[in-house]
């Protein structure tokens, strides 16, 4: 189970996050909270499913969209989401999540949440194997 520290009136609180199960054809909506100060800005919000490793985050699927951030005279927190389409490009198993703001050179990168996404195996197409008469009676 993943968890994330969020600011609150009491300082930072640890919010536990449950695992989520997805399968090909689903979308995973990832909601992020970020802090910002300064002029209004437009930046890509990017999130990826993959595996955190010693060499970094090995992305398998990702989603991104441009967010328009308003001008903030002081540090303010905002929330925004991005969807990742789950395709057959990802195999069944447990995966990690991370998000970032910015393009090639990210402005901020979130901590990775480990093993929070379980990708289920694709359910096969409808198929009939055999049939046999099991009973017969007068009605």
């Amino acid at each position, binding site marked *: 189970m993943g968890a994330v520290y969020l600011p609150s009136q009491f300082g930072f609180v640890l919010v536990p996050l449950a695992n989520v*199960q997805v399968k090909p054809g689903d979308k995973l*909506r*990832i909601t992020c909270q*970020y802090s910002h100060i300064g002029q209004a800005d437009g930046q890509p919000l990017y999130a990826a499913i993959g595996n955190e490793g010693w060499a970094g985050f090995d992305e398998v699927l990702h989603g991104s969209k441009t967010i328009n951030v308003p001008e903030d005279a002081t540090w303010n927190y905002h*929330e925004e989401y991005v969807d990742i389409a789950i395709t057959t490009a990802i195999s069944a198993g447990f995966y990690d999540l991370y998000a970032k703001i910015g393009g090639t050179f990210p402005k901020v990168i979130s901590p990775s949440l480990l093993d929070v996404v379980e990708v289920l195996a694709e359910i096969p197409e409808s198929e009939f194997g055999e049939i046999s008469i099991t009973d017969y009676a007068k009605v």
Partner: protein
Amino acid sequence: MAQYADIVEIVAPGDAAVGSRVDITVRIKNKYSSTIGIMVGGALEYGVSPWPGISFSESSANVTGGATHSFSGYFNMPDKRITIHAYSYYYGSDGSWHFDDEMTRTVDLAEEIESEFGSIAIISYQRR
């Protein structure tokens, strides 16, 4: 020293961001004992010539003796610190406007903070 149309105050912010609308108020007191016509004028000094004017929604008014009238105006902040020059005029018995008083006030250019992101955290994720 004003004879009749005494500029009491220019109300304006201490600073403003480039391109933003700056609203100001020029308060002018009628020092005469009875009602006279008072007119306001204004210009911005920041190194360009001629000095750009200030738009006032109402540039003149009949002001009763001893009263103070507020004239509202605005301008768009250029990319430099500016000095507001406000002028007052009174309507004379000869049927002409007469210059009477002047006051200045500066408005600094507000420092704009570059966009900066401090942190990001995933707070939820759900299947759609």
